[in-house]
């Protein structure tokens, strides 16, 4: 058995780490330099005490939660239905699910505004209407992640046979979904939700063009007008993303304990 580490592998790994971490470290150190001559967390204080930051953070977090809920409610039954009734539709669904990657967000925004900003919808007239629009946009942008997560979860169990077994034992569709399918997709949905949430928290263009106080727009604004705070914000958002990733890791580790397949 070849267990000795290849020196080249180590070299490339180190190089990649440097490539990734050096700028981050630079940013981090820079963010501590707000007070001349000493390292301090002043920039972080300044960011966290900014009412606008808190407002946009809260706004984006709310939007993130709404997006997650809407995505799950829309995608879970659809994907399930495709698995059960129309497996032939799967390739079509795959293509639809990657469309948001192919179509630039800016195009999406203009499309949304031009379609729904005009009569008869005129959603952009009220801030609630705009929120509905922006949430719809977020749902579309994060769909590839959510779809993939649910798809992977469904693939890891024999959805069809489990459904038939449950039906055979007398359950109606609602009971099949809530008692059998959903519990077995818990981890998949959770990880999808976290990626979805992280996407919304970092999204820039939708908030900007629809003029809503999204965290992304706020960060961009700060980046244009200040020096140290953007660095602090970047570190904070990194931390947030990593927290989400860590949570995904943590929850999916439960997989090995619990059986996920129906086979």
């Amino acid at each position, binding site marked *: 058995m070849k267990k000795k580490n290849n020196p080249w592998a180590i070299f490339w790994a180190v190089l990649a780490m440097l490539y990734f971490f050096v700028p981050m470290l630079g940013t981090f150190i820079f963010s501590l330099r707000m007070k001349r001559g000493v390292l301090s967390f002043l920039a972080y204080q300044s960011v966290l005490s900014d009412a606008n930051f808190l407002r946009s953070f809260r706004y984006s977090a709310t939007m993130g939660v709404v997006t997650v809920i809407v995505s799950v409610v829309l995608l879970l039954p659809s994907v399930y239905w495709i698995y059960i009734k129309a497996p032939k539709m799967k390739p079509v669904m795959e293509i639809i699910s990657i469309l948001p990657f192919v179509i630039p967000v800016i195009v999406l925004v203009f499309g949304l505004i031009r379609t729904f900003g005009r009569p008869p919808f005129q959603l952009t007239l009220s801030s609630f209407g705009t929120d509905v629009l922006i949430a719809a946009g977020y749902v579309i942008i994060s769909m590839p992640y959510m779809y993939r997560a649910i798809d992977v979860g469904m693939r890891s169990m024999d959805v069809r046979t489990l459904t038939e077994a449950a039906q055979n*034992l007398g*359950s109606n569709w609602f009971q099949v979904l809530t008692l059998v399918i959903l519990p077995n997709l818990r981890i998949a949905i959770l990880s999808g939700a976290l990626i979805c949430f992280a996407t919304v928290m970092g999204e820039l263009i939708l908030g900007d063009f629809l003029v809503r106080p999204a965290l992304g727009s706020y960060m961009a604004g700060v980046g244009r007008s200040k020096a140290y705070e953007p660095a602090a914000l970047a570190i904070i958002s990194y931390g947030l993303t990593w927290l989400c990733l860590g949570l995904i890791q943590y929850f999916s580790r439960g997989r090995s304990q619990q059986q996920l397949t129906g086979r």
Partner: protein
Amino acid sequence: MAQLELIHISKSFNEMTAVQDFNLAVEAGEFISFLGPSGCGKTTTLRMVAGFEIPTSGVIQLDGMDLTPLPPNRRNMGMVFQSYALFPNMTAAQNVGYGLRVAGKPRVEIEQRVIEMLDLIQMHDFAERYPNQLSGGQQQRLALARALAIKPRVLLLDEPLSALDAKIRLELRQEIRRIQRQLGITTIYVTHDQEEALSLSDRIVIMRRGVIEQVGTPQQIYNFPASDFVAEFVGHINLLPVEVVQADAGVVRLGSQVVRAGQFGHLNGRPVRLAVRPEELKAGSVEGANNLTGMIESVTYLGAIVRIRVDVDGQLVSLDMFNERSLEIPVVGQPFHVNFPVEACWLTNGVKN
């Protein structure tokens, strides 16, 4: 009156006919097997009974009531799947209790029934285990208990043992039969393993390309196959081309040797074959029986039986001898005499009788 009746059932999947004009009446408490080669429509028929497929035409009746309008969850049929299909998020006990839970039964009743069922399959010690903590055999027993917990009218099993290894398969086969007898539950058992079908069933339905070839008890199927297909599919058989000597007396010639058959139909123009099972043939010559002389072509020692192939005027005839410690195993190339009773063989011209 039969408990379950399938009347003129047909099923097509876009132009492809999977099951055709299937007629069967199952008595209460009867154990019926569907046996046939892969793709002959066994699963499709079973799924129509369970309600997962809708027949293209025909009626399925339970106690004289048409089942067609009922969705699978209102049919009260217990189904056991080849892949177990246990719910991975539930313990053994929760799996067994699932059917009663969705039916809204009181908790005490569920608990009682779960204990009763786990006792039945002798798995009370595993109540709190999750399916992935159980062996394949245990999982399938659990699936059986889960299906039986709802007190189904009919128990449906689709190749329940084919994912298990040989020893467990044998054990579980007997257990299924024991439980079925104990509960007296009407059962349909799909398999492509003839030994399973023969050993378990009250009656066997032999299917081929979506059509029933024969329905009968294991002995009827084995000893009086309705067609060459059945004769060849169940067990081993010699089907030897012969020449008709005397059509009305069933006398034929195998090579140069004359044989008389016990059963023969209309021997019209088609080529005729002599059918006889290898275990009916004995070594040696006997007065009054059919006697053949040939040369040993091959000998296969299988433990309990010894399969010998004899070259009789260019035709290979198989014969099975029971092993004994004192048995002298014949030597390849030596001359050999075999005999079989007239009643043991029949003539067939390939037309279904």
